[in-house]
């Protein structure tokens, strides 16, 4: 499985996802600098990593969304190349218009850095096939601007079309306000695009993909991608 990780100034999870991709797929991703204008040919997956690209200047992800490489990311994502944005990567994908909505300042103004529970909303996608329906997984979050916002019409459309990928929930899988770490609308932690070939999520599956780091709940996402692409 050929993959690429986009690296911006201020990315800090680019190596985490590279390690996880190599571990799960057996192939190291191409690390692509944001100033490059084209991605390698034949990619199965484009990963936009977490971090603080451009120091979150103006808005989180706003500068990165206008980097030279993004034109080719958009072109390939729109042509169906699987695209995964994690944390700052999710912010970049909403800023560049590949995903609906926006990520605004956390409800309680705090930087939230801890494990959260997520309910897997559907398992018939390239990203989630190795999870089981209704499964509750534990994945870390680390963000200041993770409060998912979209207008009600967009939220209704996301829900009725099955484009919500993950929601914050409690230990039993109940989607409740007390399980919402940042105030996200309808507890949304991750969304798909129309074709479910682009996924953005605030939690970091790549950071919990090794037993030595305390868990492996992130691994099935990468195994799903591997199965889809091999």
């Amino acid at each position, binding site marked *: 499985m050929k993959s690429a990780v986009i690296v911006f100034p201020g990315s800090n999870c680019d190596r985490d996802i590279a390690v996880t991709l190599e571990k799960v797929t057996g192939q190291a991703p191409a690390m692509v600098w944001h100033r490059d204008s084209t991605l390698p040919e034949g990619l199965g997956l484009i990963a936009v990593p977490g971090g603080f690209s451009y120091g979150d200047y103006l808005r989180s992800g706003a500068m990165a969304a206008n980097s030279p490489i993004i034109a080719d990311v958009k072109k390939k994502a729109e042509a169906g190349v699987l695209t995964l944005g994690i944390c700052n990567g999710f912010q970049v994908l909403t800023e560049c218009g590949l995903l609906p909505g926006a990520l605004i300042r*956390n409800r309680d*103004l705090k930087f939230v850095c801890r494990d959260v529970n997520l309910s897997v909303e559907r398992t018939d996608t390239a990203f989630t096939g190795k999870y089981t329906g209704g499964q509750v997984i534990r994945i870390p979050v680390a963000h200041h601007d993770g409060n998912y916002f979209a*207008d009600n019409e967009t939220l209704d459309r996301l829900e009725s079309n099955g484009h919500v990928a993950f929601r914050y929930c409690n230990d039993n899988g109940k989607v409740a306000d007390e399980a919402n770490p940042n105030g996200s609308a309808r507890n949304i932690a991750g969304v798909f695009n129309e074709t479910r070939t682009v996924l953005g999520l605030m939690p970091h599956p790549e950071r919990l993909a090794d037993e030595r780091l305390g868990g492996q709940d992130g691994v099935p996402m990468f195994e799903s991608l591997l199965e889809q692409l091999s």
Partner: protein
Amino acid sequence: MAKATVHVTLKNGVLDPQGKAIQHALETLGFSGINGVRQGKYIELDLAETDSEKTQSAVTDMCEKLLANTVIETYRIEVSE
């Protein structure tokens, strides 16, 4: 030379936790009668263009493409000579 100023603010209905925190702090200081606080951004642009219509249209384009995220924000432009 023209100068353009841009105010970017969160749309009505978008939660502004920073505005709320500012309001609470003001109330703690004893200021009363504050019905709401919304925080935004102020951007100044020095531009080579002299035609104010062209400036207006260029800055609108800048707002749509970068300065504001119109999913959550609105903007107001003022152009002066």
